[in-house]
């Protein structure tokens, strides 16, 4: 199957491969897909106190397009705010990589992985925000 140059580039030189500590408070982890479907993406973000994504890492089980889509996503995420990250659409990825129709679902999965990572980070930090607020409240009384 002929791949676009961009897909080949990301496949041959994937950016940001690796793992962040999933237990760290500033890290959001998204794992989407299923081995039975031939596609699993793990995407992680590290967010600073200003809500800016300072690091992103990925690991993917899937074809060349899937690997390229998740690699591109991490590249795109770094430097953006969490708010901006929620605006990433699979079509942005698909267009950038010139994905053929049969591979569009790889970009959809990448978008899902980003959203899942953001959700995870938000959930962890809402809990910690809530407990910080509760502790302050307790101190006042």
């Amino acid at each position, binding site marked *: *199957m002929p*791949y676009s140059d961009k897909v080949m580039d990301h*496949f041959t030189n*994937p950016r940001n*491969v690796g*793992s962040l500590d999933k237990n760290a408070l500033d890290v959001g982890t998204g*794992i989407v897909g299923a*081995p*039975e*479907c*031939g*596609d*699993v*993406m*793990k995407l992680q973000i590290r967010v600073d106190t200003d809500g800016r994504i300072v690091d992103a890492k990925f*690991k*993917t*089980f*899937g*074809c*060349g397009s*899937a*690997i390229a889509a998740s690699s591109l996503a991490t590249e795109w995420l770094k430097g953006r705010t969490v708010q901006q990250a929620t605006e990433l659409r699979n079509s942005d990825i698909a267009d950038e990589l010139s994905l053929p129709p*049969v591979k569009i*679902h790889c970009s959809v999965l990448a978008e899902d992985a980003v959203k899942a990572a953001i959700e995870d980070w938000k959930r962890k930090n809402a809990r910690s925000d809530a407990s910080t607020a509760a502790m302050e409240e307790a101190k006042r009384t």
Partner: protein
Amino acid sequence: MTLKLPIYLDHNATTPLDKRVLEAMMPYLTTDFGNAASRNHAFGWKAEAAVENAREQTAGLIGATAKDIVFTSGATESNNLAIKGVAEMYRDKGNHIITDLLEHKAVIDPCKRLEQAGFQVTWLKPDRFGVVSAEQVAEAITDKTILVSVMAANNEIGTLNPVAAIGALAKQRGVLFHCDATQAVGKVPIDVEAMGIDLLSLSAHKIYGPKGIGCLYVRRKGPRVRLTCQMDGGGHERGMRSGTLNVPGIVGLGAACVICRSEMAAEAMRLTGLRDRLHQTIAAGLDYVYLNGHPTQRLPNTVNLSFAYVEGEALMMKMKDVAVSSGSACTSASLEPSYVLRAIGVSDDLAHSSIRFGVGRFTTEQEVDYAAAAVVRGVKELRELSPLYEQAREAQRSQAQA
């Protein structure tokens, strides 16, 4: 010796033309262009002689006689002719056909079409190595059964079926036995008499011959098999397959058969050595590698492996200088993983991780070593990227600590 890239290890998909086959075909592509049915001049007579010679040569590879051979455009057409031809001819005798889940689509799809037209089809399930047994066939036969169709060797995993046992059983029960021998012919001995085969399909392009030509063996004695012709128009091939004969193709098929017949034994040994060298080198360099297919009852040239935690299409991209194929859904237009692997019980994730290697007549040890190294390297690199491999290693570590 310098290695010529890319390396071809997909001989089950197709094979290159043997130089000797091309040589045999050349006159019929150039000066001797006559129509074999032209009764009245030397151009026709020459073509006819060449065709009849090739017919003998083709029959010789499978233990048949020349008159039993019907030339077709390839095994797909032969399978269609056999299955539909028998179904239509013997409709009054019965409406039940027995086949199995591992057959090539060229057998499955005609059977499905007959099912839609009101025939009963039993789809036998092979064992986990892909073997369909004679006992299974015996159990399925009823008084309405008119045809059993079981392949000699599977194209994806290479497993060999007990053809002689199935043939003997079919003969005993008075049911016609069709064997799609496309992958087996020329690699392992096939003898239609010894194996009780009534109809057999083969293609030239799997045995170093040209594409677009094959034949259907149709038994004429014990019993005499009759078929309803599927290609009408002129009555060629004793009324069984109309259409001007592809003389150069037929000559090529004949030449390919002659070469196979004389070189098969030695070649099978050489191929088995190369196949096993490839498998062993890969298995020595990696963990979590699984063989799909029978460990011993298998085509001498085929090895189908699953590499856990790595996806097949991505692996093929990593090994871009080595041509192979995969059972991964990502490589099919339907996004479904290989139905063959599914039928033998391979889990979907391992089906997505499968690669089929097929060595061939011109494959060298150097090529096999290069390919094995490329596979090991590619799998290791992709496992670095794989969240599933990471999980598996973590699980292993915590188990070891426990």
